[in-house]
Structures are given as C-alpha cells and as structure tokens.
C-alpha cells in the first residue's frame, strides 16, 4: 500500500473499500476451491477484465506479482516431484501456480485502486459494532502508522548500511543491528511527539 495507489475515477476506484474487500474475499475463496483449469482460466480472464475496467495496465501489478514467480520456480517442481512426475502432478502444480497468480493479481488490484484512507474507513466500519470494546480510530491510526513506518525503517536501514560500508564494517551484524535499533527507537519517540503535537493523543 506504500506508494502503490494509482489515482483514477473508474468504477473500481469509486467502489466503497468495504465492498471491494468483500468481493476480494469471495473471489479469493473461489480461486482457492477451483479444481478445473478451464474455470481457473475464466477467473484469470475476469481479473484481466477488472484491470481493464479500472483502467490499470496489468503490468502495474508486476512489482507485487514478480516476487511470487521466484517462489513458483521452486514450488512447482517440488509439487510435480511429490506427485511422482505424473500428468496429474503437472495439473496440480499448474493449478497451484495459477491460483497463486490470480490471487496476488486480485490483491494487487485492490491495492492499486484503493487509498489507505479508504481502507482505514472500511476498518472503522467493520469495527463499529464492537465500539464498546475496540476504539476503531486507534486501530485505524495503528494501521496507518504501521504502513507509514515501513519506508521510514527501510530508509534507516539503508543509511546504516551505507555508514557501515563507509567504515569498512560490512561483515559486522552489530554495526547494523545496534544503530538500526537505536535510530528506530529515536524515530518512534519523535513520531509519538509529533502525533501528540497534531492532537492525536486525545
């Protein structure tokens, strides 16, 4: 969700996030239970149609789908080997790979067409019946901060790795772990202070 959202005005973009989450869940279940390659091909065609409807080129999902292919490079041969190299084994392995690709492409479409704010609002809507026990705003803030902190920590790690190289300590785990931990804690403290300043500790 970090910087992947592609602005648009399509039906997919405008649909409520909660509805999209429900549709996503239903399609995921269907993808999971399908055992016929033809039906799976139909689901793949549906995914392509949804991308077209959203006006998002399927290649935009590549950064999320790409890493899955590496897993499949190992998982498919293992699946075939487990099945004794039979034709059924190849079919099962093909189905498994297809299911995974369709599922990731669907999830990517949700990410590409939905803002974090919309997701937070959906969370708050889901949690509304439990408001006596759960503060939906706090949960929303927690999710937002978690998403926000990923690039922040990644930047800290990048800078520490650079500093470690500059000091010729590439092999030292301590020279990576200690500064990353200390700087992350300082950053957490500073973010907490900034949140308080923005009136978010009410």
């Amino acid at each position, binding site marked *: 969700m970090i910087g992947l959202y592609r602005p648009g005005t399509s039906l997919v973009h405008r649909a409520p996030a909660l509805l999209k989450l429900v549709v996503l869940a239903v399609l995921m279940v269907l993808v999971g239970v399908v055992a016929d390659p033809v039906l799976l091909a139909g689901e793949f065609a549906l995914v392509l149609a949804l991308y077209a409807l959203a006006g998002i080129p399927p290649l935009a999902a590549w950064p999320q789908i790409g890493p899955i292919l590496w897993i499949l490079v190992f998982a498919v041969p293992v699946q075939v080997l487990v099945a004794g190299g039979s034709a059924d084994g190849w079919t099962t392995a093909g189905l498994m790979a297809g299911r995974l690709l369709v599922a990731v492409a669907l999830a990517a479409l949700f990410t590409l067409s939905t803002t*974090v704010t919309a997701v937070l609002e959906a969370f708050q809507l889901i949690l509304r019946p439990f408001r006596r026990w759960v503060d939906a705003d706090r949960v929303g803030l927690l999710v937002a901060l978690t998403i926000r902190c990923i690039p922040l920590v990644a930047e800290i790690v990048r800078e520490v790795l650079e500093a470690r190289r500059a000091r010729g300590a590439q092999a030292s785990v301590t020279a990576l772990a200690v500064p990353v931990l200390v700087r992350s804690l300082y950053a957490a403290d500073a*973010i907490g202070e900034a949140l308080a300043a923005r*009136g978010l500790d009410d």
Partner: protein
Amino acid sequence: MTTAGIRFEGVSHGFDENPVLRGIDLQLTERRIGIVGANGSGKSTLARMINGLVTPERGTVTVNGLDVKRQAKLVRREVGFIFTNPDNQIVMPTVQEDVAFTLRRRGLDAAEIAARTAEALDRFGLTALADRPAHRLSGGQKQLLALAAVLVAGPSIVVADEPTTLLDARNTRLITGLLVSLTQQVIVVTHDLEVLDGFDRVIVIDEGRVVADDLPPVALAAYLSLLA
C-alpha cells in the same frame, strides 16, 4: 489582565543539578518572534512548552488563557508545531491523505475535509503532488507538507523548531517566506539568523535563562557577542 498570547510565569524545568530552564518569565504577544541560543541552551524545550509537549516542573505556561498542563488538548488546537525533521511528522502514505488526516481526527464530514484539504494543498503548491507517496518527496516538499498538515487545522499560533535545519538555501527561503506570510502568530526557534529577517522580537536563551529579549538587531548582537 489580558489572557491573549503566550505567558510563561516562573517556569523552571529539569534536574536541579542540571536545569534546562530556570525562572523564565515571558509574555509573547508579537506576531513574529524568534528564539535563538546555542545547542542545549533550552530553546527547544521552551518552544515545546507552548504546545504542551513538555510541561513545566515549576511555574505555569498559558496560551490564550489555557494552561498547557491542565488543558493540553485545547492548547494543541490553538498551537500548531513544526518539527526539524518533517519525516517524523508525516503519518499517512500520500500527501493528500496526510493533510486530510489532521481533519479526520476532528470529526468533520467528508465534504468539508475534502474542501479544506484541497484548499491547503493549493495554498502550499502541493496539488500536483496530492497522490504522491509522502516519503518520496524532497526535503523541502516534506516540510511544505508538514506546514500544510498543521495549518489545515486552523491554529492561531505556529511554533517551528529549527524548520530549515535540514533544508538547502532555496527551500530555506521558501519555508521562511511562507512562515513570515502567515496570518497566525509565528514563533521560530532557529540557528539560521537570516530566517529572522522582518521579525518583531528575538529572545536569546543561554543555559536555560533569557539573556537578551529585544528588537532583532539588538538581541542578535547580544547573541553574537555571546558566541564570540
């Protein structure tokens, strides 16, 4: 006695053997006030007290009659705070969402949030960057975003703690120009004396005490002689 403005009365803070602030009495009513001092002089602590981020151990700080210790929530609606590192201030992934985030916490309806967010983005030249990931902005753009996210809430006072320290000369001029142009009361803590051009008053802090408090030329001369 007027309640308008910021008032420090007998404020001391920190451990007895190493106090951060000692016996501060100030009334801040001017529109543009600069606070300068060496590292560790206590100027940032002083600025944080205006927003209630730090509460005084002795004495009182009031903002428009509100006590920062007892009425911190109300004080923070009056006082917007800009930090040195805008990265710590950005909560949401995109520019537009971060500006809107402040308003969402105020319980405003969606239409008003959208209108006020669009207005703030336009005012700070961020409209074209509205959907850009906030963490990928340049330093100057991030500080602009931090300023927009603070001002969209409509504070009457803006406190900025070394807002130009991480910026280049061009962005320093940009942020300084914006701070000076604000209609709000602006209090800037800085090491960059050029930022204080056109300010009404400058306070010099040294070892937790106010050692000069005057018009900028007089106070800055005192500060420079302190550094010499």
